[in-house]
C-alpha cells in the first residue's frame, strides 16, 4: 500500500497553496489517513512530480491540467469546506 502524495499548486506557491495544504492535511487526518505527503508548488515548477493528484483553486484548474496532461487534477472551490476537501482527496486513498 503506497501512501498518497498530493501536490497543491498556486501561482507562486507562497500563499493560497500553503493555506490549502494545511486544510488538505487536516482533511486527510480526519479521514483516518496519517501516512501521506502533501507538498506545495508554483505553477511554473509543478510538472512531472507524478503525485496521486494535483490540487488547486477551480480558477487554476484548466491551466494546471494543460501543464500536466493526463495527470489527476482536482479543483477546489472553497478551501475551508471540510466536506468538499475530504471528497476531493478520498478517491486517492488506497484502502
Amino acid at each position, binding site marked *: 500500500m503506497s501512501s498518497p502524495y498530493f501536490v497543491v499548486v498556486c501561482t507562486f506557491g507562497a500563499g493560497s497553496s500553503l*493555506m490549502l495544504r494545511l486544510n488538505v492535511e487536516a482533511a486527510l487526518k480526519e479521514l483516518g489517513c496519517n501516512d501521506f505527503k502533501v507538498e506545495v508548488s508554483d505553477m511554473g515548477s509543478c510538472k512531472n512530480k507524478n503525485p496521486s493528484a494535483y490540487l488547486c483553486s*477551480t480558477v487554476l484548474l484548466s491551466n494546471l491540467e494543460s501543464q500536466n496532461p493526463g495527470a489527476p487534477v482536482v479543483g477546489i472551490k*472553497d478551501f475551508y469546506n471540510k466536506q468538499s476537501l475530504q471528497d476531493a482527496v478520498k478517491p486517492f486513498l488506497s484502502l
Partner: protein
Amino acid sequence: MGDIHTTNKLLHMLTPETTAFAQKVSDWREAIRLAGQLLLKEQSISAEYIDECVQVAEEVGAYFVVRPGVAISHARPGENVKRVCLSTVTLDPPVCFGHPDNDPVTLLFMFGTRDNDGHIDLLRDLSKVLSNDEMVERIMKATEFKPMYDDLHQMLS
C-alpha cells in the same frame, strides 16, 4: 495595536493603521490598491508591489478568493517587500473579483513576504481564523479595531 507580548504572528501584525473597515470601492482593482496603500503607508512594501498584485489577478484570475467572501491578495515574494506584512480591509458593499463561486468579496487581506517561508506562521494563524465561520462573519461585520482584535486575541491565544 500589535500586542508586543504575543508570539502570535497574526495578532502581531494586526494594527489599526493596516486595517480599514466598510470601505466603498468601485471594483476589485480599487480594493487591492486600497489594501496595498495601507502597507505602503507604513513602508512595508514598495508601490510596485501593489501593481504586481493587480497584475497577477488580471493575468491569472481570482484564484486567491479562497472561500466565499474572502480574498487574500499577494504577489511574488521578493525585493518589493521590505518585511512580512498584512493588511485587512472589509468592503461594503461587497465586490466581485471574478471567482465563479466565491464572489462577492467582503473581506480582503493583502500580505507581503520577502522569501518563501518568512510568512508561514502568519498564514497558519490566518488560516486558523478562516476555518472558523463565526469568526469570519464577525470580522466581516466589524466596524472598530479594538473589539475585532480582542475577539481574535481570545480565539488565537
